[in-house]
């Protein structure tokens, strides 16, 4: 204690030792309302409620420093308040330029005190477009926890956003909610998500590559006469989780990939894989988007990387031989959580939510089918070539495993492997 002065101790106790401070009010909020003018399509009428305590902190409204803000003081600062606030708000969209002009000043009471009400008009050089961007920078330099609660009313549509120093811009859609349109836009999102999500893509590809091949035992005296897959399913199923040991225990047995004879069995396999994947990822996608389950993204992303490794490794050392769709089904749960990251934070009314979730799922589906349609015929035609068996199936899987291992390390340990991202963006 000798080493510390009392003032320092008092400050330390105040800053560090009070575990759960009891706050008297919520943090700083301002309420911004914009209303499309029915008579003039170039005009938005605005109302901006800003707490007097915040304005006092920024501009010093309490001129006589008596700890009381009077209406006279607020009125005297009207111009200062208006130019301060309106300079920190912009309305943009489609090359739109708008100028803000103050129209009036009032006072309103909110739950945590008195607010100055700035009435203003935003006059734009064109018709107000259906998509508006609001750029909100009030108190960005004074309080990182300030929030601007923005509401826009236009032609029977009400939309809004909560903005602040960390998220200063929102693009708001003023069109009437068009569910079909909403659905379609999410279909596109879903499509893109699977096409640009290289990890989802590689997972499906790894499972598809072997659909045109079957595993056959080569050291069997009867050669190809015994298609062991017929009974193998039972053996693998019997061995359960120790399938790997089962394979290792019969090291002398040798297998090789041989092309399927006809299109249909391969096609049925693919249908099973895709359906299994769809079934499980739809479940977790829905649960995660509705906020019912919430796993750390690091865990999910690492899980996805593991799924790619498992799927590709199974092409080199097949453990699951017949029921490939089981892999797709099991890991689909993890991929669904990954898809949900694209919809994360989407707070929509139930109907919009159904439309967007459904649309996104359909998009993901269409994306998958497109991949299947692109790969399967080529794979089927090439299945008898050495190029396919060694070059595509074996070395392709090796490359996929290497990539996915890289992702796994990066995601699980949160490190960057130098140069790795240059090969493929994650």
């Amino acid at each position, binding site marked *: 204690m000798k080493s510390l002065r009392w003032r320092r101790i008092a400050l330390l106790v105040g800053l560090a030792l009070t575990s*759960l401070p009891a706050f008297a009010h919520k943090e700083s909020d301002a309420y911004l309302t914009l209303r499309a003018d029915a008579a003039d399509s170039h005009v938005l009428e605005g109302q901006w409620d800003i707490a007097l305590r915040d304005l006092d902190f920024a501009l010093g409204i309490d001129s006589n420093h008596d700890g009381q803000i009077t209406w006279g003081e607020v009125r005297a600062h009207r111009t200062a308040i208006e130019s301060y606030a309106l300079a920190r708000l912009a309305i943009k969209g489609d090359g739109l330029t708008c100028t803000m002009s103050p129209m009036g000043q009032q006072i309103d009471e909110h739950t945590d005190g008195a607010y100055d009400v700035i009435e203003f008009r935003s006059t734009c050089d064109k018709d107000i477009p259906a998509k508006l961007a609001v750029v909100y920078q009030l108190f960005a330099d004074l309080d990182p926890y300030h929030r601007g609660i923005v509401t826009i009313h236009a032609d029977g549509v009400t939309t809004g956003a909560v903005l602040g120093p960390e998220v200063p811009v929102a693009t708001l859609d003023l069109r009437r909610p068009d569910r079909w349109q909403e659905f379609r836009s999410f279909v596109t999102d879903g499509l893109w998500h699977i096409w640009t999500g290289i990890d989802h893509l590689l997972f499906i590809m790894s499972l598809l590559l072997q659909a045109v091949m079957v595993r056959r035992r080569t050291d069997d005296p009867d050669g190809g006469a015994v298609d062991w897959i017929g009974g193998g399913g039972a053996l693998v199923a019997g061995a359960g989780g120790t399938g790997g040991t089962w394979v290792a225990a019969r090291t002398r047995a040798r297998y090789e990939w041989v092309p399927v004879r006809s299109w249909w069995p391969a096609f049925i396999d693919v249908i099973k894989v895709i359906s299994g994947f769809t079934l499980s990822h739809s479940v977790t996608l829905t649960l995660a988007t509705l906020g019912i389950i919430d796993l750390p993204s690091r865990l999910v992303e690492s899980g996805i990387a593991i799924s790619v490794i498992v799927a590709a490794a199974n092409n080199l050392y097949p453990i699951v031989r017949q029921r490939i769709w089981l892999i797709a089904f099991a890991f689909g749960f993890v991929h669904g959580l990954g898809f949900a990251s694209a919809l994360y934070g989407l707070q929509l009314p139930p109907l919009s939510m159904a439309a967007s979730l459904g649309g996104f799922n359909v998009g993901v589906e269409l994306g998958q089918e497109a991949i299947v349609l692109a790969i399967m015929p080529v794979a089927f035609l090439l299945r008898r070539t050495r190029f396919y068996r060694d070059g595509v199936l074996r070395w392709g899987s090796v490359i996929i495993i290497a990539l996915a291992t890289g992702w796994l390390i990066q995601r699980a340990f949160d490190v960057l492997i130098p140069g790795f991202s240059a090969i493929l963006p994650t």
Partner: protein
Amino acid sequence: MQPLRRPRLFGSQCSASPHPLGCGLAGLLLAVISLCFGDAASAATHFHPYVPDSPDLVLQRVPSMTDPRVRAFDSLRNRLDGDPHDMDLAVQLADAYIDYGRSTGDARYVGRGMAVVQPWLRQVPTPIPALLVSATVLQNRHDFTQSRATLTALLARDPRNLQAWLTMATVEMVQADYPAANAACVQVAQIGGDFMGTLCTAQLRSLTGRAQQAYALLRLIEHPGAAAPPAIKGYLEGLLADAAMRLGKTAAADRHFRAALQWTPGDNFLLADYADFLLDQHRPAAVETLLEGDGSSDTSFLRTIFAECALHDPRAAADAATMRARFAAMDRRGSRLYPREHAEFVLYVEHDPGRALMLARANWTGQRSPQDMRILLAAALAAREPQAAQAVLAVLARSHLQDPAIARLTAAIQTAMRGAPEVAARSGTSP
């Protein structure tokens, strides 16, 4: 000068008709699910913008220059404006803001403190003092996970940082990681000396079943001499009150609370703590007197409503509606500073055990102080889901916390778990 105009947000026509069961708010002791008042104030009419009639009308009270703390940070702010690159000055100002925000309960000042050091937080590596401010702000805003991460990084670079160890001890205590808190307290004692070490360890002992030791230790430093600032003396008396309360020495606890309030009158945290104690002691009238005129503070106002309920005060319905609007305003901004208080409000005033339990569980993921244990136990009991309080029982089994109120709730939960839910529900409803 006209008096402060405080228009009521809601119509006063909402009558508070007490439920036949009465205002059964047995303090916050048990999960009281009898109705506090029949019809909740439903006629919520929002106040509309207006132009005041007189220029002298007082619209808002703000920190006054007569307050030395305000003069101090005003002069710091002026100096910083003159030399915006002086980090030491910025950190001093940030600390002054945060300390002011904590003692007055004005959460805005915590964010303002953060803003002051923002330019240095963007530097790599972040200077230690600025990092410490951000850890303090995160801790104050109940973002304990981020605060701990920042402190861990900071202490790796500066292992003898007293304030960082103290904050770490606090974070670990709130999150009920008592071995880690103890390790931090040991560092505090080594770096900061006996006085700081005693403060730290006494708090920890009070939480871990050794309230007797805590009380004895605090009595040793109770009178730190004339040179000690009132804030320290008030703080010590507050800790003594808590320890006495844990020991069941209610008369002593009351004495310490009143002594604390003499040193730091109007301290928002202390008022809330004392009001909770009085509610536990079935002294709602004393709560109304204590918090009279402090209605602009949410935490005080909430306790006033609890007291009004217990007293069948006709103001309860309208005040509850006002409080509901305040919680709704917090929901709109999307962040809550007092999740526990919200759960308490929903359980004891709204009588919605299911939602209270949901809120109490969400609260428990962030903070695990004795009050957080209580609300989760009480909500689980009221919602007839005793299993939901399992996490609390697990912490209690490790910490051996002494606390008469928590002991009663725990016993009720255990009875309920043994398969007698009706018993639990009954003991929960009877005040």
